[in-house]
Structures are given as C-alpha cells and as structure tokens.
C-alpha cells in the first residue's frame, strides 16, 4: 500500500470529512458530554476505542463472511443484506464490554459519562464508520487494515471535534450570554460556527 494512502485516509477522516463537523454524525455525545474537558476527553477515548475495534471486527466479518459468496447446499448466498444487523450486534456488545471494564477500572469516568456511555451503541458515528468501510469501493468494502485505520482516524477526528468544542464551552461558561441564548442555544450556534470553520479543510484532499 503506498504510504500516502494511509495519510489520505487519516487526514481525510480527521480533518476533511470530520465525522462530527462534516458528516454531522455522533452529535449526541458531542453536545451531551462536551461541558467539561475531562469528561469530553474520556468520552472521545471510549469512542475511539469502540470505533477502532468495531471497524476491525465488522470489516473482518463483512469481508470474510457477509460479502463473500458462500456456497451452501448448491446455492450461492450473499449475506451482505444482514450487514446492519450484524454491525449493530457487534457494536452493542463491544460497548457493553467497555462499560463493564470502565465501571471496574475507572468508576469516576463511568459516573461522569452516565447515560452517554451506553449511547455510544446508538452513536451513528460508529455505525456510520462501519457502513462506510463496508460500502466503499463499489460494495466490495475496504481492506480490513484500511478499515481499522479509518475507524481509528474517525475516532481521532471525533476526539478533536469534541476537544475543541469542550474548550469552547468551558470558555463560554465565563461569558455573560444573553438570556435567550443560554445553555443549548449558544452551544448549537458555536457548533455551527465550528462546522463552518472545518469547511476550510474541504479541498485538502481531492
């Protein structure tokens, strides 16, 4: 694989097509956990972990099992239509395992994330990354390694967006926002402006 392919995937996933700010996926934890920097970093760590492993497992399953032509009892079946079901099951299990591990090893982070930890399951960013990996290259999917790298880079991009937003929100806490805008309103306005800023990366990768 030529080295600039990796660079393309990584830069593309982090900056150009940032999962939160360009693809508008994963907004739920983006808005919900970005009030404090520590929680935001914890959440991005968890999501990156889930993204990497789920991208690997789903790509593996897709490549080897679902998209491959399997001959059973004389008939060739293509099970790629089950991809969403399988992907979700895999992601859900992974998140469950992470929840258990987090509860054991970092109870404070577990409590801080609260409801948003199991919500990683329904985080469209994770399913989105898996689907993007599966759907690329005209339905034949990316290679397993590329998928994993893509998943990891997506996680980094998510982390970057969350980090920036958390810092902005902490700073917003120290401003006298006009009454009608306080709370979610100004957060959404800020997110919009941040998304516009990231459009500047648009032509970095053709």
């Amino acid at each position, binding site marked *: 694989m030529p080295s600039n392919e990796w660079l393309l995937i990584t830069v593309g996933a982090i900056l150009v097509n940032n999962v939160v700010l360009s693809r508008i996926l994963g907004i739920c934890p983006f808005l919900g956990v970005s009030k404090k920097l520590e929680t935001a970093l914890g959440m991005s760590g968890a999501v990156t972990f889930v993204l990497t492993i789920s991208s690997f497992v789903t790509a593996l399953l897709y490549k080897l099992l679902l998209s491959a032509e399997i001959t059973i009892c004389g008939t060739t079946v293509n099970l790629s239509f089950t991809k969403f079901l399988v992907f979700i099951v895999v992601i859900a299990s992974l998140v469950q395992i992470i929840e258990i591990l987090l509860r054991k090893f970092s109870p404070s982070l577990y409590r801080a994330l609260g409801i948003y930890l199991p919500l990683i399951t329904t985080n469209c960013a994770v399913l989105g990354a898996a689907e993007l990996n599966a759907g690329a290259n005209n339905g034949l999917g990316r290679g397993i390694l590329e998928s994993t790298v893509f998943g990891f880079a997506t996680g980094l991009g998510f982390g970057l967006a969350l980090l920036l937003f958390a810092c902005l929100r902490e700073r917003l*806490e*120290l*401003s*006298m926002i006009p009454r009608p805008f306080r709370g979610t309103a100004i957060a959404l306005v800020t997110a919009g402006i941040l998304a516009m800023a990231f459009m500047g990366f648009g032509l970095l990768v053709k």
Partner: protein
Amino acid sequence: MSLPPHVARFTGGIHPMDGKGLSNGIPARTAPLLEKYLVPLHQNIGAPPKLTVTKGELVKKGQRIAEPGGFVSVPLHAPTSGTVGNLTEVPGVAGNTLQAVEILSDGKDEWGSGLDPIVPWQEADRKVLKQRVADGGIIGMGGAAFPAHVKLSPPPEKTIDTLIVNGAECEPYLTADHRLMLERTEAVLEGAAIAARILDVDRIFVGIEENKPDAVEAMKKAAGAFGIQIVPLPVRYPQGAEKQLIFAITGRAVATGGLPMDVGCVVQNAGTCAAIRDAVVEGHPLIERYTTVTGTPVVHPGTWIFRVGTPVKEALKLAGGVREQPAKLILGGPMMGFAQSSMDVTVTKNTSGILLLAGGETGRYLSSPCIRCGRCVSVCPMRLLPGPISVMVECENYALAEHNFVMDCMECGACTFVCPAKRPLVQHFRRAKAEINAIRRARKKH
C-alpha cells in the same frame, strides 16, 4: 556601605492627572483646637484597642485612653487635654460604624503622655525603642493602618537588610507627605534612622516621586547626616505601592502571596517615620497627622495638621467650606480612597486626604460586558488578568478566580481607571476576596 539603588521600572501602571497643584505649594497649617473630638477606637488593622477611661475622667494630651487588644494592636491616646465624654458611634471609612470616644477639650491643651523622651536613642536598647513605637500608638500612616511595631518585628528567620521610606505619595491630589518632607525633613529622616536601628539595618532608602523636586532637594540635603540615600523615582501610579517601591529601588520582586520581609525589606511611610521620631525623641504619641483637604469644590485647598478625631465637617470648614455641592467625598486619594455616604466621618490616624470631587469630575460605572480589549492587563502592576477575573467573578466561579491570583490584587484601581467598558473591576475583586476568604474559613472549620 550602601549600594546604589537601580531604579527598575515596574510592570504596568498608569498616569492619572496630578491634581497636586491645588495644594502642594501651600505650607501646612496647624488646625486650631476644637471643643470636641470624636476619636474612633478601632483605627488599626488587627484587634481593636480596649477603652481604659470612663466618662467624666480628666485626661491630659497624649494620655493613654485605650490599651492594645493584642499583639497586632496599638493603644489610643487623647488628642488634647480635657474630659472624657460619651462613648458614641461614628461612621467608619468603609460604610461601617465605629465606636468612638468623645474628648471634650478644656482649652489648655496640656501634654501628659507619661512617655519620657529616649535620648540619645542611638544608645538605647532596641527592644525599648520598639516598645516605644508600640506605646506611641503608631500605625502605617500611608493608609495601610498596620501597627508599626509589628512591621518592625519580623520573625527571626527573615533576614532584613533594607529599610525603605515611602515618600512616593503617588495618589493624585494628595500632598500631605510632600509637605511633611519639606517642613519636617529632619524628623522624617531621624525617624527612619530610629526604625533602621530597631531593625538593625544600615541600608536606608527614601523613595520620592520626581513630581516633588523641592522635597527631593530638601531631603537630599539633610540625608547625608543620617546615612540615608534619597532615590528620586519616575512618576507613575502606583509607584508608592510597597512591592512596586521595593522593586524600583532594590530590584527585588516579592513572590505571589509574599510579603516585603521575604525579600529582606521593610517599608514605612514617611509620616510613620516622623511619628516614630516624635514618640521616641519627644515622648509624644500619635495624635495628629498631616492631611490634605483638596478638590475643586474646596474653597481653600491645602494641607493641615489635624488631631485624630477631628470631624471632617470641621476640617472642611477650616478649608473655607465648599463653593459648590460636591458629588463625592473621598477619604484618602481618588484611586484607593473610600467614597463616603455620611459627612459625620472623622479624621483617623491614617486619613491621608479629604478629597471633594465635583459632579463633572466623577465617572459612572456602566457595568457593560468585558470587551476583552486587554487594557487592564497592560496596566496591572501585579501582572494579573483583571478583565477575565472580573468575568469569572460575575459567573461566580471563585475557584478559578483564586487560581488566577485574585488574592494578590492590591486594589490599586489602575484597571478600573482604564477600562473602556466602565466596569467596576476593583469591586469585583473585593467581592471575590471576601467569598474566597469565607470559603477558606468554612474549610478550616471542617
């Protein structure tokens, strides 16, 4: 064996209008004896003194009428001879109420302090000299009101090598220390020498801002005899602040939360030095001081020598009264002084000025949002971030304000002076300090 001082420029600072022209050319006058003086009891930082005389008792001028309430406290003395009157109340400088004792003058004004002159002081025991400073009821007369003998008693682990006399008087309008240094030059220098003897140091500097060239001249002429070095300082507010003064003269910087003694220095106001000299050489405790009565509404601005307990109303009468209704009455200077809401305040040991400001001369706060222009940051002499800290206080995030060193703020007012959004910054910091102290007290309890 003094090394030449290196006059460093401190960070920040502002150049407010001078205003001293109203009173700096006029020699100080001694106020005539009044019929009644209302002497507030608690004039010092630290414990209030305890009254020892009762109503109807006859007292002599300078006689002790209250004893110290602890180590960080000073005694109180009668400003004139006469009879002790009622225990009453007068408004304090900060809007509080102070207990005050009336002294009704008998017109004779006879001394009777019970303190003998200590001459020659050069041979007296240092502890005796220090005790005399305490017995003289002397507190920081530049406005700080901190008992002088406590300042002259640094803990043994702090080595002091320099005494700095604060003759900067950087506040606009005030000329009390200026006239004092011109008219009682030897007294100030001798007092400094006594203080240096108590501290056992031989490096003594007097810092004087260059807007007082005649005082610099006069002090320079007489200083040689005492082994004191006069240091003319560039005019900038707040040059007279302790830490800035130390930095300018010695180049030493006091760390955050620290005190001058941490860098081996003790700073005393020029007026305090003169009072030390009077207590030691004459046996006269602190009962009067140089005060500037000034401002455009004042008919005859000038410097007066008022006895402690002089009602401000009488002081203004002596200055010829007012020619127009003033908008503000400030005790102290316009930058760090307190605006009064009552005319019943009295002159205390640390009243450096009685300032009246006309309507057109006072600004009004708007409390509009911080526009983050950064002007306050560039003028803060303590290198703080006044604008962001004020926003933290508005959002009630005192932990963050404490983290940004709001406790180091000396409330000089430079930031408030330059703020284009007219925010009451110093008030925000006073609020923050009060809240942080309350939190610390509550934490100690648990």
